[in-house]
């Protein structure tokens, strides 16, 4: 078994060899909201109020929000801004042609964006949670905003009234090639928003929690069902194991 150990050692070293430092602005961990219905409902409210003005969630039906503990009347009266019926998909009122003219690109569909933005750096939720909180004032951009993790984002800071206005603190750093690069190290609040930092972070976490839920509405049910499936299969495996043993007892 010595050989196995040697192999394991070499295999264990491999990732270190291949992982090169690719340093961007670090992602903050998005708080888990998956079991907090009130937070997810708040997230849904923020989503239809702020995101749906420009973005679609074309795979998402309004009445699927019933899964978050809302009834059809609540959905219809409070959340249905872009359609007439709760059976409709979440489609923005903004025509794609105008969007293209105003932002230079059609805003992406957000149905599964929380899954698409996952990477080695963090989950898609982490990405969105960091992205939505790191807009800063940048007068060189057409929108007047820039972002720490998506440089030169076409999207303006939609939540600016809530967060207020912040500017970037830059610091010079000497890169690997010896050249000096300007790096974003933090933010400075210039104008306060209607929310303090804690409130804002909590609300963004709710919004991101909602987007994570929306990316796969069956995720929680899938995991709950998975427990039962695994229990059943484990029982089946034990029976199959004993059945096998009883047959093979006679093979000499």
């Amino acid at each position, binding site marked *: 078994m010595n050989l196995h150990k040697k192999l394991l050692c070499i295999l264990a070293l491999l990732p270190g060899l291949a992982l090169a430092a690719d340093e961007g602005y670090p992602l903050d961990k998005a708080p888990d909201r998956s079991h907090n219905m009130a937070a997810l409902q708040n997230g849904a409210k923020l989503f239809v109020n702020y995101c749906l003005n420009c973005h679609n969630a074309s795979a998402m039906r309004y009445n699927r929000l019933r899964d978050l503990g809302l009834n059809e009347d609540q959905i219809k009266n409070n959340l249905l801004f872009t359609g007439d019926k709760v059976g409709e998909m979440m489609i923005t009122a903004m025509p794609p042609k105008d969007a293209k003219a105003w932002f230079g690109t059609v805003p992406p569909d957000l149905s599964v964006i929380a899954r698409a*933005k996952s990477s080695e750096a963090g989950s898609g939720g982490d990405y969105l949670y960091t992205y939505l909180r790191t807009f800063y004032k940048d007068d060189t951009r057409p929108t007047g905003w820039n972002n720490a993790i998506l440089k030169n984002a076409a999207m303006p800071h939609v939540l600016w009234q809530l967060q207020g206005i912040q500017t970037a603190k830059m610091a010079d750093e000497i890169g690997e090639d010896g050249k000096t690069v300007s790096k974003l190290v933090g933010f400075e609040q210039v104008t306060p928003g209607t929310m303090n930092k804690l409130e804002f972070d909590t609300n963004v976490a709710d919004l991101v929690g909602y987007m994570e839920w929306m990316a796969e509405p069956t995720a929680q049910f*899938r995991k709950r069902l998975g427990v039962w499936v695994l229990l059943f299969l484990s029982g089946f495996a034990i029976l*199959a194991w004993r059945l096998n043993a009883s047959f093979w007892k006679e093979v000499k």
Partner: protein
Amino acid sequence: MAAFKETKFPANAPAAEKALGWVDDRFPLTKLWNDQWGKYYAPKNFNFWYIFGSLAMLVLVLQIVTGIFLTMHYKPDATLAFGSVEYIMREVPWGWLVRYMHSTGASAFFIIVYLHMTRGLLYGSYRKPRELIWLFGFAIFLCLMAEAFFGYLLPWGQMSYWGAQVIVNLFGAIPFIGPDLSLWIRGDYVVSDATLNRFFAFHVIAIPLVLLGLVAAHLIALHEVGSSNPDGIEVKENLGADGHPVDSIPSHPYYTVHDLFGVSVFLVIFSAVVFFAPEMGGFFLEYNNFLPGDSLKTPLHIAPTWYFTAFYSVLRATTADFMWVLMFGVAAYVVFIWLKSRLSTTIKAIIAVIALLAIIGMLPSVLDAKFWGVVFFGGSVVILAFLPWLDHSKVKSIRYRPSWHKYVYALFFLSFLTLGYLGTLPPTETRTLVSQVCTLFYFSFFLLMPWWSAMGTFKPVPARVVFHAH
């Protein structure tokens, strides 16, 4: 040909027996069952490694059944495909489960088939008289790769789109006909609706038909010559009084219950992935594939799904600089053959001429490295087919080979895994160098096998299989 004779049953015989007799008179149902499984005698010393054949069969059925249900809701249309997959995930009752089973099944299929092939390598399952079984198996592997490649375009995500674009463009590297060939495959100047429709046709009908035929051939050939075993002993050389090999047992019920247990363990692992990690950290479902395919936005890093990355690494390792090393390698191999091989002078001369042409072709001014990358990419797969004729070891099983052979195999598997791992990452200078070393080792393993596999002190092979009663 004897005249048709209806089997007579006593009047009080059970209806089922009569029905079976009626069928058996017209179709060899009982005979087929007995030949292929019921009375198929298999060596009794199968170990863990021998479960993957049955599991591959199970996953094949799983893929076909889930695939049929997916086809009922999927739309092979560039504007609708991405949305229809999300429709399956959300609106179709249990659609999410069927889709996850299919996507996880694709990866599971490759894991199982790679382990199945590893078994073949370890115990020399491809050796005479099982060369054809190996060749059928190799053809199944090719079909599986095609099936996975065509199927991967269907969700029409960014990785689907650009993965297909990159692979189809590889054909463009072939001199003269390349650009037209890739145009013909795509049916358009870029991957488009035309490409999606034909890939759909290949994925759901053309390749599965061929695949099923090959699986049947693989099994018929296996049950004709009989299974090998971890000791590499021909059990048919030692028959008992009943005419069956003394070291064999009927597949039914012994391997039926054995496989049932294997299947249950597999299903536990498979379900754990389906229900708790269907994306498998971006390896089974790539994150980028949750963005719809966009011909105007090229992703920064395009990599094939994990099961192709080892071969893809070989392609990427073939850089212009590396060509000089390869040219030297080809020349050295020819010299080696002239000095060491017992082949006739004519064959040696033919090999030398082919090698000379190849070396000329490898000069930077003749054919560029991209073309050779494609050649080595294809070669790294095709070379597997030649194993039965490359292996000159005196014994079949690794158990009785010289101990140092185990290190050669270990290095081979390690270089294959390293190639696979590096293929998932964006290239850097160090990674390219490592993959070049692994590529050289990968090819040397096969090309030098006729010599190294015969070298060393072999251990005595026992007359009977090693079996410990349960």
